[in-house]
Structures are given as C-alpha cells and as structure tokens.
C-alpha cells in the first residue's frame, strides 16, 4: 500500500481529536494496513491487562457438559465446578452405570429372578455414587474441595443430590421396558433413597466409602437370603412382591430410614466438617 496515514494525524486520532470523516477514513485504512496499525499508541499497561483477561479464559480447562448445564441452570461458577468434579458424574462412571443398568434390565425381562436382580441392584448404584462423591481416595479434587470456601456438608449434599438425580433418572429411563410389572418396577426407589440417606448419615462417623460398601453388601446379603428362603417354599404369586424389601411393609421401612437418615445428617453436619479437615 502506497498511501499511509500521516503520523501526526494518527496521533490525534488516538487521542480522539480528529473529526468524524477523518476518523472514518483512518479506520477504513487501518483495517488492512498493518504498518499503520503498528504505529498506533495505546497504553501498554491497558493492553497487558486486557491480554491477561483473555489468557485467563483461554488457559481455563474446558468445561465438561455437566458444568455447562449447571451454569445454564443458574448455579454459581465455583459451585458448578465443584459439583461437576464429582467422580460419579464423570463419563467413565456414567458409562459403567449405564451398561450395568442395561444388563440388569435385560436380565429383568428374562423372568422373575432377573427382575429381582434388577430390583436389588438398582439401589446399590446411587449408594456407590454417593460413597464416591466425596473423599480423599476417589475425588481428584479432594485437596481443593477441602480448601474450598464452602462447607463440606453443603458440598456433600450438593454432590449427593446431583448423583442421586442422575442415577435415578438413568435407572428410571432404563426401567421403562419393565412397565408391565406395574408399581413393582418402581419398588427400588424407596430402598435407594433410604440406603443413600443412611450412607450419608454413616458418613458422619466413618468414611463415605466404608459406609457405602457396608450398607450395599448388607442390603445385597439380606436380599439374597430372603430370596433363597422364599424359593424353598411354595412358589405362588409374584416372587418379587413377596421379598420383604419390596412388600408394603418393607417400603415403609425404607421411607422411615430415609427420614431418620436425613435427620441424623442435619444433626451431625458439624462432624463432617471436622472429619474433612483431619
């Protein structure tokens, strides 16, 4: 390009001292003239500050879909990141869970025993998710979360809610093919809620992992013994509805456990605070 803006005019342009026509002309020229652009003077401190802001965003690790969704829902940035970092919300975990649920549903369509297997397995999934939601062994962000300006209790609650919601949704959707079983197809919901709350309550006295593993195996063992006892007797009626846990009395029991568990968790939330700091 042969024509260039006079340096003195350029100087006045930078100070906003030229008229509109000149400014328009200079601006049109600057769009494709690198030489003139390079002669513009803007406070270097301002440019450095702006670049630092751009670099912050550029260097920020990419958000995972969970975090993006939470932000869409209006959750604060920091909270969204802490919740999104929940191990049980990560892809490998979700995929593993989806496969497990899919297998269980396939088994469930195969007959009574398969259906029982599904009902017993379903409540274990949220326990596993909640147990792994918070703790030094499983959480890659544990050191960060302990130092995070948010009560450990609040975080555990937030993450548990996120895990419970995602698990229940996943299992619920997967169970649609079992709709023929009537209300029994939803009989796992209350045990899932009760056992999850019990896990949280026990987490105030022991690590969430131990609490989760303990409760899940107790649940599985009791269910197994119960089913074996039933199979020995006369096989009349629906097998699943005769298992204690899925009978009306059993359902009421798990609802009670859920209520008590919630109460204990609220009462003992400070304990969690102290435990997470040691």
């Amino acid at each position: 390009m042969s024509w260039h803006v006079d340096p003195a005019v350029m100087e006045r342009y930078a100070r906003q001292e030229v008229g509109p026509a000149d400014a328009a002309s200079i601006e049109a020229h600057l769009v494709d003239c690198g030489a003139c652009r390079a002669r513009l003077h803007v406070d270097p401190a301002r440019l450095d500050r702006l670049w630092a802001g751009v670099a912050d965003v550029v260097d920020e690790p990419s958000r995972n879909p969970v975090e993006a969704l939470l932000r869409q829902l209006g959750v604060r940035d920091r909270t969204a990141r802490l919740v999104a970092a929940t191990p049980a919300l990560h892809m490998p975990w979700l995929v593993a869970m989806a496969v497990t649920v899919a297998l269980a549903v396939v088994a469930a369509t195969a007959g009574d025993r398969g259906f029982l297997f599904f009902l017993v397995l379903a409540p274990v999934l949220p326990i596993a998710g909640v147990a792994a939601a918070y703790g030094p062994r499983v959480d890659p962000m544990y050191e960060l979360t302990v130092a995070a300006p948010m009560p450990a209790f609040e975080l555990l609650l937030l993450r548990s809610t996120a895990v419970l919601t995602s698990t229940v949704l996943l299992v619920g959707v997967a169970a649609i093919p079992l709709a023929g079983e009537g209300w029994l197809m939803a009989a796992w919901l209350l045990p899932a809620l009760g056992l999850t709350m019990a896990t949280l309550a026990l987490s105030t006295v022991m690590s969430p992992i131990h609490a989760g593993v303990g409760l899940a195996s107790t649940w599985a063992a009791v269910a197994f013994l119960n089913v074996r006892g039933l199979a020995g007797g006369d096989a009349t009626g629906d097998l699943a509805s005769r298992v204690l846990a899925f009978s009306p009395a059993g359902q009421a029991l798990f609802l009670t456990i859920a209520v008590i568990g919630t109460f204990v968790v609220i009462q003992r939330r400070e304990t969690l605070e102290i435990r997470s700091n040691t």
Partner: protein
Amino acid sequence: MEGEPSDRVLLGAIADADRSALQTLYERHAPWLVLRLSRRCSDPDLVDQAVQDTFVAVWRKPGSYKGSGEVGAWIWGIGIRRLIDQLRRRPALAATPELEGIVVSAEDQVLAGVEHGDLASALNALSPELRAVVQATILDGLTIREAGRLLGIPSGTVKTRMARARVQLREALA
C-alpha cells in the same frame, strides 16, 4: 510483511489451539480495536470487556472467518457486536462520544478537504445525530437494529435519520 506470518496463517494456527498465535494476533489488532471502539462508547470498562470478549471469540471460533475480506474487518465485526452486547446489558450507559460534539480544528478541516474532498465536508456538515447513524450503518456495517442498540435509539429512528442524512448528503454533493 517482513516474513512474519499473515493474519490468515495465524488464524489457522489458532484453529489448532496455538496460544502464541492468538497473542500475536492480539498484539497486532488489539490497539486499533481499543481506539475504534472507544470512539463508539465513552465507558472504557465496556470497551475493555468488548475487546476481551472479541479475542476470546476469535480463540473459540477462528473458523467463522470465511476467508473473504480482511481479517481486520472480520475482527471489527466481532468487536462492534460484542460492544453492543455490553451496551444491551447496561442500556443506561449507551452514549457515543461523537454526540458530545468534538470540536473539529481548522487544520482537520483543511486535511479533510485535501484528502477526502467533498464527501468529508458533507459528512462533517451532518448533525451529530445523523452522522452517528451514517457511521454505524454504512461505515461500521451494522444492521438497522444493531445500530439502534449501539446508539440507544429505536430502529424506526435509525431509519428516519438515515433517510434524512441521505437527502442532506445528496444535496451537499450535488
């Protein structure tokens, strides 16, 4: 240009997540963008935010540059729209320094006459309101609606002012 990579080459590198390419592009284009946006908005904070948003947008979507026209013009298109986004969030602050009436020095008048001929004096002779509309639509390449947002006036007003400016320019250039 002295063997330095062209803007297009830089955009290609940015598409491959080359951070230093973005920095080079920023060093080349941020100064004029800051100055040009400052002429459209008197609040430096909004200008700063718009400039940052612009380069973040360049980083995220370098592919939206279609390869036609200057990279500078493309960056300007993003920048002015980011500024409008900022103004929309804080509409009370919409104000163009242009409207405050910058005094044009005699020297500038002469310069304009020499370099741009009659068009420049015709443009300068427009009232600040009409000139702002001409600048936003014709020179900055905004739509009627975007110009209205930038200037803080309804679209209908942008249209009537453009029509008036057209008549006035036609008379001045006749």
